[in-house]
Structures are given as C-alpha cells and as structure tokens.
C-alpha cells in the first residue's frame, strides 16, 4: 500500500465515523401519560426473589412488581398495601395476646397474569420461606408462625406460636402459588428471574448485565395507573458511569449517591438531588473487653475489662473530644446530622441530646481517670482503673480500606484525640476482613480490636438491630458459634430488661418506651459513639414527576404515581 492508499483509507474511516455520528438518536415520547423512564443501578440484582436476595439492588428492582400486605411510608409508619387496613387491637386485627393477626385483602386483587390473589398465596409464601430446602435467607419471625389459616379467600389469619413483636414487618412480599413452584426447589424457580406480582409494573425482559424492562401491569388495582409506559432499569458498572449518564440526560433516576457526589451534580442542568436523613448511622464501636481474650463471654468481660476503654470516663472523654459538627461540615458538605443514638428516625425514634464538643472537659475526665500527660503530650497511666502505670493512652482505630470518606474521618479523629492526649493509630482492613464471620476468625467477631468505625442501621422494626447489637446474650462467643453483633461486649441490666420488654409487648407505645430506655443506657454508657447520621441521596431528572422520598422503602415504592413531563 502506498501513501495515497493509506490516505484513502483514513478518509473512508473518517467518513464512516461522520455518518455514524450524525445518526439520529431516538426521542422518547414525553407525554403526561406514557413515556419511558430509565433508572440506573450500579449493581445487578442476583435474583428478584425477595426471600433469596441479599443485595439491595434486588429489592430496588423487584419493588416495581412485588408487593406485600403492608408498606412503610415516608414517616416510618405502616400503611395498607394489599391489606385493607393495618391490623391493630382497635380494629380487631390483633388478638389480645398479640399472637393472632388477621388481614383482609382489598377487593378484587389480581396477579399480573390475571389470577386472583388469595389467602392461599400468603400461606404458600410462609410455607416456602420455612421449607428447610428453600434456601430462604432470613426466616426470623416466619419460624415462629404456627399456621396461616384461610377462613375465606380474602381473609388471612396468621397464628404465631410465640409472640413476635415485629409481626407487621413480616409478609412484606407475597409470592403466587400458581406462578412459583415447589418450595424445596425455590432457588431454581423461573419466578426468580421473572416474578409475577401485584405491583404497578410487570416484567418484560431481563438482559443479563445490561437492562431490565418493566411494562404496566394491566391488572393493577388502581385504575388509570401507572402513568409510565415502561420503566427500564439500566445496569451500569459503577456509580461514576451513572453520574455521567444523568448529566447527559440518558437516565432519569440515579440510585444511591454519596455526599461527595453532590457538589458535582448539584450544578448540572436538569438534575435534582433528593437527600433525606436515613436510618444509617456512622459510629465508633468500642471494645469494652480485654482485646487479647478470644471472644470472651460477659462474665469474662467483667473480670477482664479493656485496660483503656473499660473505664466509662475514658469513653466519655473520647465522645466529648470529637467535633462531630466539623466532620459533617468538612467531609459531608453539611448533608448529615449529628449522631445521637441507634433510633434517631422512624416510629421508634428516641430523641436524645447530641453530645457537646468539649475538649477541656474531656481532658479533665482523663485526668480524673488516672491518665496524666506524658512527655510528648500523649497521656500515660498513673493510677488508672484498669491499666498498669506507665501504659500509653494509645488505641487502634480500624475501618474498611478504600473508603475515602472514612479515611478522612479517621484523620480528623486522630487530630481530635491528640488534642486531649489520646493517640489513635490506624490499621484499616478490606471490608470482607472487617465484616467476616466467626468461623473465618474475623477480629470484630472475636473481640480482637480497640475501636472500629463503620455504618449500620436498624430496620423499620428495630428489634433485631437493638437486640442483635446491644443485648448481653448477643455477645459473640464460642458457645453460640459467634452469633450476635454485640461487638462492644456490653452488658447492661436495664438495657437487657427493656429489650425483652420490647420483644414481648404487643403494645406499640410500650415498645417505644422500652427502646428509648435502651437508648438512654447506650448514650450514658457509650458502647457505641455515634458520629453522624447518613443521608439517603439519589438524583433524578427534572422531567420526572411524582418523586416522593421514602427512606424506609425502595425508590420505586410509589412508581405508580411517576410520570414524565
């Protein structure tokens, strides 16, 4: 080939590129009724079966078609979805002992294939979950059910063997018997990839790794809804890709942003940011036991407290020494609120006073606790309660690697602690190591740590979270093969009593009071120090209408009301 030949080829390539570039991009219809909304997820659901799925993305997708008896609204209160009303003592839905719950279906409910929704589907859902071969992930609560009775096709009577306080949170997804399969074969059901539900949309196709398309469910109970003619879930490899796509308007909804994304997206034309306080709280978990012991049970913890953190005055000093507001302003662009306790939001919300930033008082507390300034400003023990004289006031601070926000927060924490004469040193680990199981020898489970920093959150019903993290029987030990999340190894009688009270009371107000009593003990005793409450942040294009933020449910919780301008 000569030069002219090469030139000809290059020109031809250029022409071809120009031709492709000028190809018109299809425009979607943009009417009040109809229109295709594109929703970007940076995770692909592994399955849409709500009782097998573990990833949040699976629930963000199946919400368009799968519904339960009750939903949870933006205020964290239950509202009827398939049921006519939320069962209570007053309306006769809850028996005196709280063990028998009666639901009535709304009239004329149909599955997206036209079959009627009956009580038998609820019974089937229960049977599928508790079948030992079904591979259901969580069976809590469902195991406590003795039977599901069906006095009529539209009446469901759930009889619990023992009282189960979060009963309203069960059956948040109902599966159709006729369109599922043998419970023992649940992991292999075709339903898992193409569920039949009662929601406003029904699934058209799922192209692996690319997109999932939903079209309106023509049997949806609300006439004239949904407004959209399709919802396309676009699976992107990362949040970054989604950010570019929403800027160019190729997607309408972008799920799950972090605070640091906001300054980049806020100025973008046509992009709206939804930010609302969520139940997630970033906290320091303090180990109250001697970290050299392997998974000590409570009696061992009491005999062998942590040489530094075992003294409540030191824990108080740490909290008072942290400038929480500055962390929020500097690192979170003011988009979070000061952390207080586990239940800062929801129906069981318990408002406690945020801690004051008071380094002077913190230093005073450390003095009183027998920690005197050393030559380099870091304190050493001199008559401390549990530490030998001469022990340096030095603690290991750990979190997950690769999380920029947490790494920056650690830097601030080191700085704050230095000012009160406490030395934090960092030893971050990959998240599978931090969050590993007892069997894998994870240090968090076995109690080999001083302070760890991470986020967790209670569910709509906080029982499993409060009991799991703060009941003395939830301390992971060899005896219980590491079950439970009480990594602080905190044992508190008042908290234990109230956790049991909340667990066994059918009266919601009594439960609220009990939880608040637990929170009071946590705030006083500080097994966890709450830094800030994270916001739930998402973005959407301004051509979309009907967006209602609900941190208790998935973004598509009210998709039947969504429309495009």
């Amino acid at each position, binding site marked *: 080939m000569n030069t002219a030949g090469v030139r000809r080829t290059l020109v031809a390539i250029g022409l071809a590129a120009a031709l492709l570039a000028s190809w018109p991009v299809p425009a979607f219809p943009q009417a009040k009724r109809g229109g295709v909304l594109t929703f970007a997820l940076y995770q692909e659901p592994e399955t849409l079966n709500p009782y097998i799925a573990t990833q949040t993305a699976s629930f963000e997708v199946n919400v368009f078609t799968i519904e339960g008896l009750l939903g949870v609204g933006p205020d964290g209160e239950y509202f009827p979805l398939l049921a006519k009303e939320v069962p209570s003592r007053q309306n006769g839905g809850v028996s005196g002992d709280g063990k028998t719950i009666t639901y009535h279906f709304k009239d004329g409910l149909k599955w997206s294939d036209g079959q009627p929704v009956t009580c038998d589907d609820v019974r089937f859902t229960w049977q599928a979950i508790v079948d030992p071969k079904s591979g259901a992930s969580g069976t809590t609560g469902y195991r406590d059910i003795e039977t599901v009775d069906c006095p009529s096709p539209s009446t469901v009577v759930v009889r619990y063997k023992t009282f189960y306080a979060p009963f309203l949170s069960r059956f948040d997804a109902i599966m159709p018997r006729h369109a599922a399969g043998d419970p023992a074969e649940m992991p292999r059901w075709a339903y898992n990839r193409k569920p039949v539900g009662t929601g406003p949309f029904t699934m058209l196709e799922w192209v692996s790794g690319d997109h999932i398309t939903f079209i309106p469910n023509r049997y949806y109970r609300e006439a004239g809804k949904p407004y959209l003619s399709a919802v396309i879930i676009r699976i992107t490899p990362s949040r970054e890709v989604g950010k570019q796509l929403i800027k160019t308007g190729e997607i309408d909804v972008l799920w799950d942003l972090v605070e640091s994304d906001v300054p980049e997206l806020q100025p973008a034309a046509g992009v709206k940011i939804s930010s609302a306080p969520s139940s997630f709280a970033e906290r320091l978990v303090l180990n109250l036991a001697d970290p050299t012991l392997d998974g000590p049970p409570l009696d061992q913890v009491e005999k062998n407290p942590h040489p530094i953190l075992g003294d409540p005055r030191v824990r108080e000093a740490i909290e008072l020494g942290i400038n929480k507001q500055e962390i929020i302003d500097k690192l979170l662009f003011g988009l979070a609120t000061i952390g207080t306790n586990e239940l800062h939001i929801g129906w069981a919300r318990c408002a406690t006073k945020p801690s004051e930033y008071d380094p002077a008082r913190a230093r005073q507390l450390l003095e009183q606790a027998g920690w005197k300034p050393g030559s380099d400003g870091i304190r050493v023990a001199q008559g401390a309660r549990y530490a030998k004289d001469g022990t340096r006031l030095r603690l290991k601070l750990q979190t997950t690697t690769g999380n920029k926000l947490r790494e920056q927060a650690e830097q601030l924490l080191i700085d704050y602690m230095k000012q009160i004469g406490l030395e934090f040193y960092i030893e971050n680990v990959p998240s599978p190591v931090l969050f*590993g199981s007892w069997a894998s020898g994870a240090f968090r489970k076995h109690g080999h740590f001083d302070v760890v920093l991470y986020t967790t959150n209670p569910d709509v019903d906080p029982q499993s979270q409060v009991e799991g993290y703060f009941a003395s029987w939830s301390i992971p030990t060899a005896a219980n093969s590491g079950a439970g999340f009480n990594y602080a190894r905190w044992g508190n009688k008042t908290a234990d009593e109230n956790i049991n009270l909340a667990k066994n009371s059918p009266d919601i107000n009594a439960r609220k009071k009990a939880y608040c009593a637990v929170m009071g003990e946590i705030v006083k005793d500080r097994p966890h120090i709450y830094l800030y409450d994270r916001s739930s942040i998402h973005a959407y294009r301004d051509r979309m209408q009907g967006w209602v933020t609900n941190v208790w449910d998935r973004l598509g919780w009210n998709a039947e009301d969504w429309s495009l301008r």
Partner: protein
Amino acid sequence: MGAYVLRRLVQAVPLLWLISLVVFLLLHVIPGGPMAAYENNPDMTAEDLHRLEHDLGLDAPLHVQYVRWLAALVHGDWGYSLASKRPVLVEIGDRLPNTVYLMGVATLVTLLLAIPIGIFSAVRQYSTLDHVVTTVAFMGHSIPIFWFGLILIIVFHVMLRNPLSGAPLFPGGGMYTLGMPFSLLDRLHHLVLPVGMLAVANAATYTRYTRASMLEVIGQDYIRTARAKGTPEPLVIWKHGLKNAATPVVTILALDLPALFAGAVFTETMFSWPGMGRLFIESAFRVDYALLMAIIMVTAALTVAFNLLADVTYAVLDPRIRYG
C-alpha cells in the same frame, strides 16, 4: 503432526488439573467468601447461616469441596452460581455472545489497521510516515487503557455533541439504545468507542511486531532474488515477505484470542458492555466460586488450545518447522 497434536493435548490434561487446583485454593484464600453477604444481616439467625452454608456445600472441608467440584465437572456439570443460583453455563451463555461480538470486531479492526501500517512503515523505513507510525504506536502501547477510555468518553460522549440532534456524539456505554427496535446503525454507533479504545491499544503492539519482523525479512536474500527476477513489488511484499514475517504476529494473535472468551475487563467496565469481563469482575466481588472457577478454567483451556494452534500454524507458514 497428528501424533504431536495428540501428545500436546494429553499433556494439557495434568496442566489444566494443576491450574484448577491452584485457582481453587487461591479463591478460597480470599477473605469473606460467599457467606459474607448474609453475615451482617441482623435478621439472619445462626441456624439460618448454618442451613444456607450446608445447602451451598460450603460447610464441607476444602478438599471435599474440591473433589465434589472436579467430579461434577468430569460429568460435564459446571454447577450453579452461588449468587444467582442459575446454572453457570446459563450465566456464561448470556454474556459470551456479547464479548465475542465486541472482541471479534475489535480484533478484526486491530489487524486491518496494524498489519498494513506495520508493513508500510517497514517498507518505507525511516520515512516521515514511519516515524509518525512508530511514535504513535509507542504512545498507543504506553497509554494506560483505562485512562484512554475515560478520555474517549469525556471527549466523544460528554464534550462533543451531534450538531443535528444535540445528543452526545457517541454513546458512552451499552450495546444499543434501550427501548428501540434492532438497528444495525445503532449497534455500530455503540461499537465505535469501545472498539476504538481496544484497537488503538492493541494495534500499537501488532504494528510494532509486524514492522520489526517485516524489516528482518526484507533484508533476506530471497527477497532480493525475487526482486532481481522481476517479481512485481506488491507480490514480493505480500507473498514472499508477509508470509515469512507472519510467524511472530500469529503468536501474539494466538495468545490474544482467549480474550474473545474472557473479554476485556477494563473496556467492558468502562463502556457498560454486558460481557464476560464484567461477569468475571462481578463474580469476583461476590466471591462466586462456581462461576469464577468456570470462567478461569475455560480461559486457561483456551489459552492452552490456542498455543497449540499457534504452533501448528507455524508449521503451515514455515515448512522448515517440523514437529515429530
């Protein structure tokens, strides 16, 4: 020849077995594991965890798990994905055509660009074009591919707009426009950036090999002889030259071909391409043993096979090479 191929195939069996053992052990060294997804759910009781672990066969000792996997494989059963619970072959079957499509087009474009350019710059050694080609090839070879891909997206997707519709000049990801009926032009439109990124990076390598190998061949006596006896120049280059210069290029190509199956992790991730590269990454994050083992083993088997294919091709290209 037949005996040689057979011997190589037989040798491949213990090799692949060894690979499977090492990979299996390495995967199980990764902290976390597939059960990690359940560990921090406060709604999961210890009994639930044990039951699931048992269902997935993860509670058995490691050697038992390996033998189970191997025994199933011998019977042609690749098992089920631990995350999606679907058969591994179905998962791969969903993604493989997309990867073959992307990588096939990219390889074709690469060769169509690289070989003529390489030959040309060898024939016209030290001409201006040769210097340009050599420099560009060197740059293409050195640019980190993930950085280059991002630059392509920023320039051709975010900055440049189609003057007619105002839409981005080229799509920043995906295989086609969602919600639109099949259109060949739309498909090609989506191919431009990812193929461009792969072609630039790979063509650089191929150009340099073609050029070097061609230069060596052009200096040989038989080329001079061919010219002396009056053979037309194109015939000298394309028949006498290229055929002899092709051997190293074929080697590189053979080593690259397993990527037709394995996909390009960076390219697919950057351009939201639903192919094998992304399937691999996603499975790695989920520590999906069954799926990871399958992808790695098939890639390993293809690498072995294509190496053999390369050796056989040598013999075809160069009659002096004999295998006995």
